[in-house]
Every structure is written in C-alpha cells, then in structure tokens.
C-alpha cells in the first residue's frame, strides 16, 4: 500500500513542475562488522538444492561476497525423519537427490543445521501449499501509452488463491532464464492482508508485478513466473527485505535490520549468523511473447 502512495508522491512532484532528484553519493562510513550470511531456500523442485553461506561485505563493495566453505550443513525432514547432508563445491553447499526426486515434500517440516567453527545454528520451516498459475497474458504498450514511458509488452499472470486458511505467497518473475530475475511481489491470499478475501484471483498490483515497468518485455522474450508458498514467518521476513530494498521517497522508513530465524543452539553464545532458512512449494509458468 505504501508503494501506491509513493507512486502518488512521484506524480505530485512531477505534476507540480518540480522534479525530485536522486544523486549517487559517496558515504564515508566505516566498514561494518562481518557476519556469516545464510541464504537457504529449499523448494519441492526435483533435483539439486543449494544453500549459500557468505560473509557480509561493505555495502558498496563490488563483486560477489566471499563464500564460507568450512561449514557443515545438514537438512532434516522432520516429518519423515530423513537427513540430507549438503556438501560444498563451486561456492555453494548442495545436495542432489537425483533428477526426478525432490527433497521438499508438501506439508513437511524441515530443520536446517549449520556447524560453523565451534558454533551450531538451527532453523525450522515448513512447506505450505501453492496453487497453479493458470496463465500469463500480455499487452503491448507504446511509449506514450505506458505509465513509465517504456515501449514493450506488459505481462500479468492469472491465478487463484487456494480456498480456506490464510496462504502466503512469493511471486518472482524472470526474463528468458531463471538466472535473470525481473521482479518480486508478496501476497497474502490474493491480496495484501489476511481475512480480506479467500480464493480470489491475485489482485492487480500483485498480478502485474511480473513486469519491470522500466524495462518491459520485448518480442520473443520469455516471461517466466514462479509462485512459491511461504509460511507466515517467511512472508514477514521477505516483506521486511522488500521494504529495505525499496526504501526511498517521501515515505522512507528508517533502515531496520532484517531478522534471522537461524539461531545459535547455545543461547549464551554471542555469535550470530544472518540470513534466513525458508521452504516453499513452487509452481512455474512461462510464455514467449509472440
């Protein structure tokens, strides 16, 4: 909702004839402390699953963050008590159950255990249900017909929230390949809030989030959409991340650090890791712009 108001703020400033402006500046601030950052998101996709553990780096540092290679990473399926060791190679910890097999199973709970030096960290998450993406549609807009003045194809997806209970979703879209991320959006049922609607089609700002308005799709490009289920706590974490990533404008918030669900098993230890352990059931849909 704040995003809608921010659009308004931009329009107000533009329409009133004064342009708010942004300049990239150099901040002379000391480098922060270094933390281990766990990027662990397990899905029910078949095949290899990967987890990254890196070091936090100064914000403006260029290049990828250095990987931490000496951790011991084990994933446990708490529901049917299976363990999956993840081994380090090429910068990531991974486990491959085989081409047609998946680690993630719907409604199963998982525990991630990481041994780092002498400390042990653990986190738990559950794979929730996810609906199908019914279709992707798109519409061509000329430069002057588009709100962002960019000519191209504006896509949206069609899907319907599952009936009953509150469901939390993560919509991520890609251009051509899954390496090329376009945008993210987060939903509760089909909208933004619990108990508003149930089993509704994903509402407009969410369904249209798969297009980057500043860089719409072009002819022959492939629109790929991933819909992932989330637990409520993962949804809270991801929307917190989202607010930190898009925190400009008249209604900017104070930078508020994202929390981690990966806890040190020794409660009296001061050592912490950052990052998140999440699990999702996922559905994909893709469509080539013709």
């Amino acid at each position, binding site marked *: 909702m704040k995003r809608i108001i921010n659009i*308004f703020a931009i329009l107000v400033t533009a*329409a009133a004839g004064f342009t708010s402006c942004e300049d990239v500046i150099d901040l002379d601030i000391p480098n*922060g402390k270094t933390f281990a950052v766990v990027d662990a998101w397990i899905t029910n996709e078949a095949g290899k699953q990967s987890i990254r553990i890196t070091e936090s780096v100064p914000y403006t540092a260029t290049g990828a963050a250095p990987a931490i290679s000496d951790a011991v990473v084990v994933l446990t399926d708490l529901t049917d008590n299976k363990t999956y060791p993840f081994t380090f190679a090429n910068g990531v910890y991974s486990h491959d159950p085989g081409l047609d097999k998946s680690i993630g199973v719907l409604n199963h709970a998982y525990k991630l255990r990481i041994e780092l030096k002498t400390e042990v960290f653990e986190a738990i998450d559950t794979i929730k249900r996810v609906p199908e993406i019914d279709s992707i549609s798109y519409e061509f807009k000329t430069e*002057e017909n588009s709100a962002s003045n960019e000519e191209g194809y504006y896509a949206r997806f069609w899907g319907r929230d599952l009936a009953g209970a509150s469901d939390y979703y993560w919509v991520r879209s890609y251009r051509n390949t899954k390496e090329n991320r376009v945008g993210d959006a987060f939903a509760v049922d089909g909208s933004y809030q619990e108990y508003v609607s149930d089993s509704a089609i994903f509402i407009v*700002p969410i369904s249209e989030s798969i297009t980057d308005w500043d860089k719409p799709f072009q002819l022959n490009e492939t629109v790929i959409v991933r819909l992932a289920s989330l637990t409520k706590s993962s949804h809270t974490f991801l929307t917190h991340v989202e607010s930190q990533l898009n925190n400009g404008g008249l209604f900017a918030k*104070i930078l508020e650090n*994202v929390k981690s669900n990966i806890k040190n098993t020794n409660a009296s230890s001061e050592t912490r890791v950052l990052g998140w352990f999440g699990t999702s059931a996922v559905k994909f849909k893709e469509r080539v712009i013709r």
Partner: protein
Amino acid sequence: MKTTANTLMLICLLMLTTFSLMAQQQRYTVSGYVKDEHSGESLIGISIGKPGTSVGTVTNEYGFYSLTLPAGSHEIQYSYMGYKPIKMTIDLTSNKRQDIKLAQADRQLNEVVITSKQQEKNINTLNTSLNKLDIAEMKKLPTFMGEVDVLRAIQTLPGVNTVGEGAASFNVRGGAGDENLILMDEAPVYNSTHMLGFFSVFNPDAVKNINLIKGGFPAEYGGRTASVLDIRMKDGNNQKLGLTGGIGNIFSRLAVEGPIQKDKSSFIIAGRRSYMDVMMKPFMKGDMKDTKLYFYDLTAKVNFNLNKNNSLFVSGYFGRDVFGFGGQVNMNWGNTTTSVRWNHIFNNRLFMNLTTYYTKYDYSLEFKSKETDVAKQSYKWTSNIINYGIKPAFTYYINSNNTLHFGVQSVLYTFKPGKGTATDGETTNETVLKDKNALEGAVYLDHELKAGKFGVQYGVRLSGFQFRGKGTAYYYADTTAGIRKRLDHTQEFAAGKTIADYYFLEPRISAKYKLNATSAVKAAYSRSAQYMHQLSNTASPTPVDIWTPVTNNVKPQLTDQVTAGYFYNAPGDKFELSAEVFYKTMKDQLDFIDNSDLDLNEFIEADLLASTGRAYGLELYVKKDIGNTTGWVSYTLSRSERKTPGISQSEWFINRYDRTHNVNVVVSHEFTKRISMGANWVFASGTPATFADARLEFQDWDIPYNTTEKRNNYRLKPFHRLDLSVTWKGKQLKRWKGEWVFSLYNVYARRNAYTVYFRQNEDDPNKKEAVRLSIIGSIIPGITYNFKF
C-alpha cells in the same frame, strides 16, 4: 482520584479567598467587543489600557474585553498594530458597555500606531513560548509556488522544524509530529496538509490569525503535548459584499464574504481547487489516461450577533485529496470539521464561549480490474475517525488584576480502523477491523494575576480518558523488547463498558517579572497528557497513517516541560527580542518494532513500543515590526532524543526530527507603495539518518544492513535554502485591487537531502550505491495574481 479532586477543591477555595479580599474598593467594569470598522471582523489581542500605566487588558479570541477599574474618570486607549488608536475618557459611575470599532491605519501612520501597542508587547504578556502571526505577516513571506501557507509560515519560528521539504507534519521543541494540537475555529484537524504535505489545508483567504503555543500551556489546552496551533478563521465582512481570490500556477482560490444583515450577521465562503490534473490531461495517454490528481477545499462560516450579549458562529470545513491511476487505483482522503460556537456575556465580567464540534478524517483506497478484463475484481478499504466535542469555556474578569478561566471539555471518539470489501465476479467479501470507542474529558481552572511588575497564571487541568466498549480488548503476552508481542487472549466489551481508563492532573504555571520599561523575565512549567497517537513509521506521515486511542496496551503520553526566557522590547518598539530555554521529558512516547505492520493490522498494538524522550534547547528570536524593512530572525539550538527498549540497543538515540541548529531569516522590504520584496533563508543541521555499513547477499538481492545496530548515528548534509518574492500591486482602483506575486523557491537550486537510501544500480546489478533523494532539487518559480473586489 480522590486526592486530585481534593487538590482541585483546595485551589478553588484559595482563589476565592484571594478575590474576596480584593473586592473592597468601589469598582466598575467597562466591557465590550472590538471590531474592525470596515469589515466588522472581531479583533483579537487588541490592547486596552490606561496610557502610561500597566493597567490594561487585551481582547480575547472573540474580540471581547472586560476591564474593571476604580470608580471615576479614566483615559482609555484601544490600540493594535496597523490600526489607528482610539483614546477616550470614560466616566465610570456604573458598569459600562463600550463596543469599539477601529479603523485600519494608512501605511505612513504605522510607526505611530505600533508604539502604542502596550498590552500586547511580549514584555507585558504572561505567556512564554507563544508566537502570533496574523495573515498580513504571513503574506509577506516568500511563498512556495505562489501560495501563502500557514504551516510553512510557522516553520520560520524558533523551535519549529520538519523532517524535510514536503513533510506532512511539523515538530515543535523536539516533539513528534502527532503531538501538535491543530485547531481550526476550535475543532481539531487530523490531517493538516494537501498533496501529501506540500500545501496546508488552511485557505489563507479565510484565515484571520494564528497562535502557536510551544510551552507554558494555559490550562484550557490539552490532549496534545508539544504544541497548540490555534487557527482562527475570519468571520466575514458584515458591512459590504466582497470578493477575494487568486489565480496561481497550482491552484486558484475564491472567497466571497458579506453581510447577511448589516452589522448583525455575515458569512464567508472560501474555496480552492488545484488543477494540475487538468493541465496534465493532454499528456496523459494509455495507462495514465484516467489519472486523477487534485485537491479541493471549502471553508464556510456564518455568524450572527443575536443581541448585545449573544452571538453565534457556525464554521465548516471540507477538504479532499483525490488520486486515481489508470482507473485501476483510486484513493481519496480528507477532513471535515464543523463547529458551532455561542458567545454569551452573562454580565460585564463573565464571558462564556460554548463550542460544540464534529470532526472527521477519512480515507478510501480501491484497486479495480480493468474495464476490459473479463474477470471483474475489486478491493476497497475505507477507514475513518470521528469526534464529537463540547467545551464550555468561561472567563471571569474579576478586576483589572485578576482573571479566572475555567471550563469543561468532553470528546467522544469513534475509530473505524478499516473496512475491506473484496468483490470477485458476483461474490462480495467484507472484512471489518473492529471499531474503537473512547471518551475524553477534562475540567480546568486557571487564575491570571497581575501585581505590578509581577504576573502569574497558574492553574490545573484534570483530564481523563476512557477506552470503552463496544469493542474488543487484546491482551498480549510479554516478550523480548522489540519483538512482535504474541496475542494471549481477547475479550469483548459491551457498549459503554470501560476497557481501560487513565486520569492525570496537569498543573500549569507561567510567571513574569518585569525588570524595567523594556525587559522582562518569564518562566513556566506545564504537564500535559496525550491520549491519541498517529501510527506512522515513515519519515513523513502518509494519508493512511491512522490515529489510535490509548488502550489497555498503549499508555497515554505524559510530557513535563520547563521553560524560561528573557524578553526585551527596544525603546520606541524598534525591535523586540526574546531568548528562551526549555527542557522537557516525555514519558510513553510511541515507537514501533522493526518491520512493524501498521496497515490495516488488527493486531497493531503488538507492534507498538513505549519510549522515553527528552528534549532541550535554546531559542533566540528578534523581530522588527515597523519601518519599510520588517522581518525576523530566529535561531534554535536543540536536541531531541529517545530511548526505546529493543531499538538501537536500548540506548538513547537522536530523533529523526532533531536539528542541532536551525536558523530562519525572514525579511520583507517595501520599496514603494506598490512594490515590495520578501526573502527567507533557512538553515538546518542535517537530518539524522541510519546508514547501511554492510550488505547481505540473499536470493539474488543485496540487503542493506547496519551492523552497528545503532539508529540515527549519522547525519545528512545540512539543509539550507533561499526563497525570494516580489509583490507588485497594480493600479489600486476604488473597488478592484489586484497584485502580482512572483516567487522563486530554492533560489540557488540546492539539492537538499531528504533521505539517503541504498540500492543496486539499475543498469549494473553488481554495483551497489548510496542514493541521496532531494524532494525539491531545482529552483521553483511561482506566479499568482491576487485580487480583491
């Protein structure tokens, strides 16, 4: 409770004894209204006194005065800045009613006139921390886009600042934005700006004058802790029909005022509408085709002098901002206020104003599927807050040295935090966040005593707040500070049943000692309680940041402030100067957990934190009222901090609205009768900010992270800006009077930082950068034609 009531009784008794002792000599009272000769507007703050003595009084907000003097013959002078003084000899052999009409002075006469504004001088009034501005002074300030603006004007005063350009709130003496009581003809206003903060909702054509009280609050004011911004609207000309207005590049204004029955009753209707949407229309195609972007407001007032002792005022305000985007997103919000006031003179020494008011703020937000979509869907949220208030206020003018103010106040609140309607094809689904109900009440009494060089106003306000049914109370389990609290249980309460209640005794005292003919020292202490908070965790409040009452989970905020000052009035009134210091502590200020969810959240109280605040500072103010060059310079040195468990390692941190230095220079110069110029320069220390010193790589994102965990430990670059304006009056015809106002805002096009945020470079995601956002990054010209007919 019992002890507070007893204390109150004791104070009353004490006061009564004092007065009975004083009422020995034969005395009579002269009383009446003071009005403008040409317009019939009642005049506020007119000095009435015996020249050469300190005996005197000033008219109240309704232009009424009462002065009790020993029997005999007295020379009395009525005077006010910009008016020809009237001097008359009054023979007091009995009580006397003396209504006065003052005529506006010619420009040349100003100097003579002003030297005689005895009673109004800062060295003669009891109040500390009070700034007055009338509309004539505000009009001299350079404008933003050609528009005279109440909220921008008060930001030039010492002790007042904002988080940045375009912010929808202001901060007084280190208080948060929701700690200001904004009253328009006595009715509270919840959202004081249009266009997200760029323009205030008060139409300058209808504003008469404003008072900003920053400390030493008289007992009649309560409910907010940082300041009272008391805005009085014009009554409307009761002599002849008139038209005023202006055409600017952003919006136009038109006001009509005139008598309903000459001398007896009058009206004013003033409206404004912005038209940027109309101007944008030709450029809006495709997605932008149905873009709506405008605001309007209507201010109306009628008043009736029913007879010598009774007058009635009915004021109304209705304003709205409308925003729509491609027919798919629609938003609108606005205030509605209505107040009915009855002035009654019981006798020449007892004056009453009874105000009843209704005020409402509401917003609506809607998403809709496109007209062309096969599957029809919509999602609409509405929310509002409604108050009904009643406040009889009495002033008892015992004699020329003693005045008593007392009254009762009561407000009934209903909050509708949100109603959601989702439609999907034929099905409609409704969600309602539960209403909240509350009742606020207060009784107050204060005594103004003048004894030669010494003066004191002391009193007490007993306030109470009842958060009541019908409603649901939420009870949360204790948890680590800074983390969302877990719901323990809820309980339903029937209509009228108390869920939580709070009572506070708020003592207030202001004292003055006049050192000599030109200088005085003053000191004040006040305690005030606040039972309402605005839920906003962004730099500037948004239109959907709703207000919420204190509940069983949220405690009232309690602020104690001490202030002391030195006031100097140069001989011949060449200039006036004040230096004030203040210190205040704030208990139970509202704060928020990290990543708090304030939008339409039923369990919002689980995300709220209570913090302790403190603020202190020095304010210097020099003002020159007379001559061709007038203006003021204000300087504030201050600090505003808070401590919140769970935030910034539970240590003290500086508030976002803290400014170490804040300078305002306002100058206006009249070159000739027809050409004048205004200039305004602002300097303020940079906004405190929290910077990311690290990034976390996660799922293809780079998440900014602050490993110090300290909040606001950096500052943005200092803010400064120069504005200029030139007013050119055309040939002033007998009836038609016109003027052109040309203004330049941000003359040297400084890009003042509003925030700094962190992002991946759009073209090269490997590059991460810190970005400075300037809301206004260029020079903004404005042009307005104002007319009067």
